[in-house]
Each structure stands twice: as C-alpha cells, then as structure tokens.
C-alpha cells in the first residue's frame, strides 16, 4: 500500500483512528441530503484500487493523471492506492482493508464484480465506485467512458488513410468494451470507405508487449496498413513506425513512440469526473449511479498526428462536431459479420446497447 505524497505509516495509523472516530458519530443527515454525511476535506480519505501499475503508460496512468489533477483541487485531501489489484478474492481483501483504514470513498479503476460488491454491501456508509461496472446499489455506482465515439472518429481517418483497405486490430479478449471499440472503428472507416475490412488478433492479455509486437507484425505481413487496438502499451505503434504503417492508439498521447505513424489516440481524462465525485462526497450530496463519460467530457480523440493530412483531419473532425451536436453514428442498418441485419434501418444503438455489444459488424474477422 502506498500513499500519495508524504503519507507515512504514522499518518495512515492516525487516519485509521480518525476513521473509527468518524464511524462512531451518529449520522446527521439533513433533509435533502444522502446518508453520506458531509466531510471536511482534511478528514476525508479516498482509496483507489488499480488494475495495473500506475506507470503502465496506459489505462492506469490515465487514471493516475486524473487523480493528480483532482488532488490539486483538494490539496488537503488524503488518498491511498494499491496497484495491480488482481481479479480474485485478494481484491476483496484489499477493498476491505481500505474500509478498515477509514476510507469514506473507494474507487476501483476497473471491473471487480462481486469482489467489490461484497465489500460495499458490508460497508453501507462508504461510497464505492467501479469503473466498467454494471450494478448500482445504495452505495455502489459505476462509471465508464463512451470510447466508441472517439473510435468512430478515428475510424473515419483510418478509412481515408488506408491504401489496402485492410485495418488491423490488436485485441485483448472478446469482451464488450473491446468489441465496441473494434466495431466502432470499422464502422467509422466504412462510412467513408465501404470497402474497408478489419482483421482482429486477440492476444489474451491487456499487457504483453511481445505478443502485441508479434500480432502487429502478423497483421502487417497480411496486408494491413493501418493498425489499431486496445492494449495498454505502445508496442504495435513501434511496429507501425518500423514498417512505415499508420497506427491509432488508446489511453494517452503516445506519439513519441512512433512520430511518423501516430494518427491519434482514444485519450482518457478522468479528472473532471473524479473532482465532481469527490466534491459530491465531501458535501454529502453523493448518490450511487451509473455514469457514462461522454465525448469531450472524459474521452476524445487526441490531437491529430503529424502524419494525418489536414483535409482528412477536417473530415474526421466534422463527424466529431456532429456527434458533439447530439447526432449518433450508430444508426441502422448495421449488419453482423454473417451479413444479417442486427440493427434495423433507422434504429439507433444507444450507449447501453453499445456497452453490451457482443457481435462483430460486417467486414470484421477474428473478433468473436
């Protein structure tokens, strides 16, 4: 367990004492307030459980950057975090430890399902948030980014930039967030270049640079000239750079790993969400809910890479403007990989439907 800044073991123990003290006070819920009593900034302790190391350069780093910005808004706030929380009963132990140390709010930056819900159920006075979660109880909410809009915009650029009309996707596991990401990119590409197809290779890991390198090389050898994916590391961008291809990334700006290949990235910014949630908890207004961080508010395409021609960037950004104005590109007819119409003409796939996407669109191979 590590503290941000100068948090030492002594502070931590003091925090435990303070937490127990707080727990003994009777809850004073004023009318119109939730049962999460208001807190002074200096007595609040917020705990974060991360799925990877905060230096992974991807998903967890993106969360850590958001937390750092949040801490600048609440400088007296104390935070603690644990890295690389496994998806196992150990997660339960770690979340329970957070509660025992007096955390009034626990935020898991990935999906921990029952492992977090069990702890939340036994600590009704603690606010819980789970990224990529699905369930909402009295004190457990979830949040997620609607990354599919950013992927769609990048897909438009991909469709205009590919010469072979074959996009390669370095996938991880066939789970809905990956399926939505790949589908959205391909739909974006097909909207400007209907001949586009996409090959997916699943490497069975969120983080395995060597496997991602091999997968990217195999995609390049098979004629894909535009690589995208959802891994936490920049491995396939390096392959693209070495072989003169284009690549779109995830999580953060990664152009320094392949300046001549970097097109854009699905960039994440959790700072506003964390600031808002912590403020709500401190003022006693926090309520458990499911929250989608929308395009421009937590997720967006990154500033276009130097390799993207201005007219292509402009066309992709025109699509972005239409999405920001409220238009959705996920409108039927959308066919699945076998050609069957899954979303009828005129019908719209809303965010909930995309969040649970479990089939591949036409032109996709290797995804599910």
């Amino acid at each position, binding site marked *: 367990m590590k503290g941000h800044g100068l948090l030492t073991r002594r502070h931590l123990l003091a925090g435990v004492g303070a937490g127990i003290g707080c727990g003994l006070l009777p809850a004073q819920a004023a009318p119109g307030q939730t049962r999460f009593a208001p807190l002074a900034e200096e007595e609040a302790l917020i705990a974060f459980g991360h799925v*990877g*190391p905060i*230096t*992974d*350069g*991807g998903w967890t*780093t993106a969360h850590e950057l958001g937390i750092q910005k949040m801490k600048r808004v609440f400088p007296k706030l104390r935070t603690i975090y644990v890295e*690389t929380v496994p998806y196992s009963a150990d997660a339960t132990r770690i979340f329970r430890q957070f509660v025992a140390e007096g955390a009034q709010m626990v935020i898991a930056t990935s999906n921990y399902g029952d492992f977090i819900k069990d702890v939340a159920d036994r600590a009704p006075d603690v606010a819980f948030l789970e990224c990529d979660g699905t369930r909402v109880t009295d004190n457990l909410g979830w949040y997620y980014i609607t990354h599919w809009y950013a992927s769609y915009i990048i897909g438009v650029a991909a469709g205009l930039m590919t010469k072979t009309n074959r996009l*390669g996707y370095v996938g991880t596991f066939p789970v809905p967030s990956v399926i939505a990401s790949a589908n959205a990119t391909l739909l974006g590409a097909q909207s400007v270049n209907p001949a586009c197809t996409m*090959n*997916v*290779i*699943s*490497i*069975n*890991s969120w*983080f*395995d*640079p*060597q*496997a991602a*390198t*091999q*997968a990217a*090389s*195999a*995609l*390049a*050898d*098979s004629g*894909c000239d535009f690589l995208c994916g959802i891994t936490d*590391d*920049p*491995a396939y961008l*390096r392959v693209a750079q*070495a072989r003169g291809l284009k690549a779109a990334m995830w999580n953060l700006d990664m152009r*320094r*790993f392949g300046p001549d290949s970097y097109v854009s990235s699905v960039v994440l910014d959790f700072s506003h969400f964390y600031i808002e949630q912590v403020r709500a908890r401190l003022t006693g207004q926090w309520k458990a809910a499911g929250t989608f961080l929308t395009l421009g508010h937590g997720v967006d395409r990154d500033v276009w890479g130097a390799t993207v021609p201005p007219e292509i960037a402009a066309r992709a950004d025109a699509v972005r403007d239409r999405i920001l104005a409220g238009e959705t590109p996920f409108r039927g007819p959308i066919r699945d990989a076998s050609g069957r119409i899954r979303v009828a003409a005129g019908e719209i796939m809303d965010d909930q439907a995309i969040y649970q996407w479990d089939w591949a669109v036409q032109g996709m*191979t*290797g995804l599910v």
Partner: protein
Amino acid sequence: MIVLLTGLLSTAVLAGGVLALAAQGEVLAERVGVVDLGVEGLMALGAATAVLVDMKTVNPWLGLLAAMAVGSAGGAVFALATVIMRASQILCGLAMTFLGLGLSATIGHSVAGMPVAATFAPVAIPVLRDIPVIGPAFFGQNLLVIPIYVLLPAVCQWMLFHTRHGLNLRAVGENPAAADAVGIPVTKFRFLYVVIGAALAGGAGAYLSLAVTPSWSEGMVSGRGWIAVALVIFAGWRPFNAAGAGLLFGLVSAIGYLGQAQNWPIAAPVLNMLPYLGTLAFIIVPVVLWKKMRRLMAAPAALGVPYDRSER
C-alpha cells in the same frame, strides 16, 4: 507468399531469441546438476536493469552488460543457497523468481512504460542480408541474433562435448561423487556454471527489453522464463537444440498470430494454444516413437540433487 514467410521467420527469430538465450543458460546450469527455476525472476531483473542503465548511458551494450552482471549476482545468491548450503533447488528457484519479479518492479518503477534511450536496432549485414527469406530474418535484424543462435551455442557445444573441461562439467552433473573422487572440484564447477547460466538469463531479459519490446514494464516477461526451463528438457540438454527449440517455439507462436491475421478457419483460442500444444507434441512424440531417444535425451543423472561429500 515470400513476404509472409519472411515476416513469419523474422518475427520468430526476434521473439525466439529471448527463449534461446535463457534456455542456453539453463542448459549450462542443469548440465552441472542444478535446476534453476529462478530464470523468470532473473529475466525480469535483467530487463529492468538493462533499461535503467540504457537510460543513463544511452548505450544498449552497457545495458546488456549490466543485466548480465545483475543476473550473475542473483545467480551467486542462488548458488550460495543451493550449492554451498545445499538447500532445496526447487524452493530456492521459486524464491528467486518471486524476488526477481518484485525487485524488478521496484527498481524499474521510474522507467516503466517509457521509450528506451537506445535499442539494439536492426543492422543489415551486406550480401547475407539479400538471401531470400533467411537473409532478412537472420542478417537484417539486431546484432545479437547471430551470437544467440550461432556463436554462443557453437561455443557451448564445443566446450561441452569436445573438451576435457566439458567432460568434467558433465561428470559433475551425472555423478558428482565419482567426479569428486577423481579430483574434479564439484562445488566450484556447480557454482561457476549456475552463475554463468544466471548471467545469460539476465542477458535474455536485456534482449527482451532492449531489442524486442523495447521498453520496461512490470509483468513483461509473462512466463517466458518458465517456457525456457521447459525448452531445456525438449532440447535434451544440448546447446544447439536449445537455440533451435527457442526458434521453433518463436515460429509456432508466430504461426498462431499469422493464422489469426490470415483468417484461417481455426478458432483464435486454439491458435493461441499452438505453442503449448507444440511443446507437448515435440516432447512426447519422439520419445514414444523412438526408444533410443529416451537414453539420448535423458536428463543429467544428478539433476536437482545437492551434493554432500560426507554422504558419498
């Protein structure tokens, strides 16, 4: 087709080098009768050290040297426990793995996920580079490929099977009591070759983080150390076989990815299993079909047994 084959072999050579180098080190350690299960941890330690030194000096060769030095230091600790103190090799190896994984995550925290300053970049060797398929794969990549696949195995093979020193070395692994009786310094031999093997494991980590990926991140070795240990068995404890086994394993895993990219009508999970199915097949089939293999491919007789002179 030529493009596909070239790409396939290039990926296999690049990725297989990690396993070939680590397996070479394990061959040496096991030939003197010591199973070093710490390879995974030593590789992680080497990978992190290499990146740290590379960032400071902007020289991948110094990174490689430092990784080998740290590998030997880890190997010396392991040898102290297993060869001198005669502790269980299995337990100490596992401890070494966990120690290496944890320590590497700690020391590498500051450089995790960052692009390395200097890498073992591809260098085209004139003339040889122009041989179709094989040229780009072996002579168009980084300068470590030839040492890993040809020079190092050649030196080890010659040393093991064509010198008196090699004969003594193998005697230590087969029957340390007999070796001791004829005056071979068993403890010295074991200590030395465990340390050299560990240095090569550290070097394999450096190759992974400076030539293949190239960058350091926690968890990047992801089980390749264990595969290297398994490959030694498959290679029958022979240097050239170990290098070949690394290449073959790289090839099989590269075929799995190519199959997915080419949309072969085989489920992706099955293609991902290929390397492991392959390992099973390679080990079982020859032994079942060809009785003589059992003796040829047998492990050093004293493998895993601590040598105690007083129990001779």
